[in-house]
């Protein structure tokens, strides 16, 4: 079975973040593979292993100046990567991104498309389902367990009250929550092998989407302002009386 994993290279979330003059997120620093995507890569590798044949392809959109993040997914065991990179895509919204990824993924005719529930930088959280609609595929979001049996995928899907068992015929789009699998660390052998694995770089024109991208996004950030800051209160170093201080505070606000 062939699995596509949507992956995104993002600015390191641990580093300070800022906006460009255009109000787009500043992505000029070092980019890393979104940790949220590592769960999908691991899940894909396990499913292909279980199926006994096929391969994992990582598909991305963004700057291809540095593809270390994608190499990381290849080092984990993905066979190849495809990245759509084009200046025309700067500031693209989720729907435009979905159109681009749908075109890139459609050519691969995968049995399954995996994605994170949302990225850790933009956290729009709609892209995988937009992608499913554009590819005319069923989608199951918020998977906490995934099994494939022949041409059917079964998913335990997170709900407010617990979880649902949901099934769909393949091909399908599934989003995985973090913690569903333990992403493997790339081995030294894997890292060496990743250096020679193919990374295909595509432009918008390669996908025949120049007009679609030129149409723009239909949304605009008009202004960004500082939010009201919350003041800190009292801080104590625990001297064996920390718990009592909390009890006294809870009493003062009448919670107990």
């Amino acid at each position, binding site marked *: 079975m062939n699995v596509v994993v949507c992956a995104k290279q993002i600015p390191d979330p641990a580093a300070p973040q800022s906006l460009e003059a255009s109000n787009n997120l500043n992505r000029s620093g070092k980019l890393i593979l979104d940790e949220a995507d590592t769960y999908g890569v691991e899940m894909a590798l396990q499913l292909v292993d279980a199926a006994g044949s096929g391969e994992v392809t990582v598909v991305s959109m963004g700057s291809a100046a540095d593809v270390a993040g994608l190499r990381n997914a290849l080092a984990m065991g993905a066979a190849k990567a495809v990245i759509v990179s084009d200046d025309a895509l700067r500031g693209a919204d989720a729907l435009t991104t979905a159109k681009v990824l749908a075109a890139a993924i459609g050519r691969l005719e995968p049995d399954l498309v995996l994605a994170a529930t949302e990225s850790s930088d933009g956290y729009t959280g709609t892209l995988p389902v937009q992608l499913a609609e554009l590819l005319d595929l069923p989608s199951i979001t918020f998977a906490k367990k995934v099994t494939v049996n022949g041409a059917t995928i079964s998913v335990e899907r997170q709900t407010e009250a617990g*979880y649902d068992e949901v099934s769909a015929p393949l091909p399908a789009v599934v989003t995985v929550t973090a913690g569903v699998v333990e992403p493997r660390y790339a081995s030294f052998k894997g890292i060496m092998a990743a250096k020679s694995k193919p990374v295909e770089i595509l432009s918008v024109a390669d996908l025949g989407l120049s007009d679609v991208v030129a149409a723009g996004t239909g949304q605009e950030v008009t202004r960004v302002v500082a939010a009201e800051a919350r003041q800190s209160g009292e801080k104590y170093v625990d001297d064996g009386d920390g718990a009592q201080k909390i009890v006294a505070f809870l009493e003062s606000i009448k919670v107990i």
Partner: protein
Amino acid sequence: MTLTSLWVLAEPSNGSLSTASLELLSAARGLASNVAAITWGDASAAAGLAGEYGASTLYSVGDLGGALPGAPVASAIARLVETHGAPDAILIPTSYDGRDVAGRLSAKLNRTVLTNVTGLADNGGLETEHPIFGGTQSAFAHFTGEAPGIVVVRAKSFAAESAAGAPAAIVEAPTGELGASGAARVVASHVEERTGPQLEDAAVVVSGGRGLGSADKYSMIEELATLLKGAAGASRAIVDAGWVPYSRQVGQTGKTVKPTVYLACAISGATQHMVGMKGSKNIVAVNKDPDAPIFQIADLGIVGDVNTVLPALIEALRQRA
């Protein structure tokens, strides 16, 4: 007023409508004179509540036959836009199914979608507010294309207030032919044993983070939550680590909570987490690191080891019980 018509996705929840849906209906009727709701399942049960909160019309998609809501409900809404004309915007609660509907609808209608919205205003058209960088800044955005705009709003952004309106008039909203996109089926539902209030509704939330050290220490968080008649939450780090399910996650990618008091235990205060809890009335933080960012927003900060402070707190609360 430049807005005339807003539609709200009113999600069924335990025989009623979800609180987040009622919040959106409350906000919508303050922005537009004409508010309609869209629901699925038993519309006759929902019509009273939807009307009470301000909807004059309830579009009913009806029984989904076990399908996941995303595809059929989005298809029904797209058909409504075709037959009834587009509203200025369609407001959708941030939830598992709400996001599915928003994504499908966006692609079907070829309209952009604005998510993580915490504020709405009529400012020469619909203006949306989005907290960014952990809520330290707010970005304001608007739609530039054709209506309808699709807006996904975070829970607790507005108060749910009854308008004592008459029941909404039910109008059927058929899904049409779905094809492969509608093929996901719910085979079985599992309700996890839960005691105490829901995370979003609890007056007290006790959350644990990576600093707990190991998964078994989370039992202290649960016990504290029980003793305080509250709910247990978690930082993204321990959800990612698989210690607790995603449904417990508080933060940008999880739930928004605004309890009377939020007890952050061994949580450093990543911006990701802060955006989900900084609206709490009171914040208490316990952390070993005196420089942890969580102390910057805590009303009471205890610099100490959760392994000594929490057992002492549990003991003190037990003695009062």
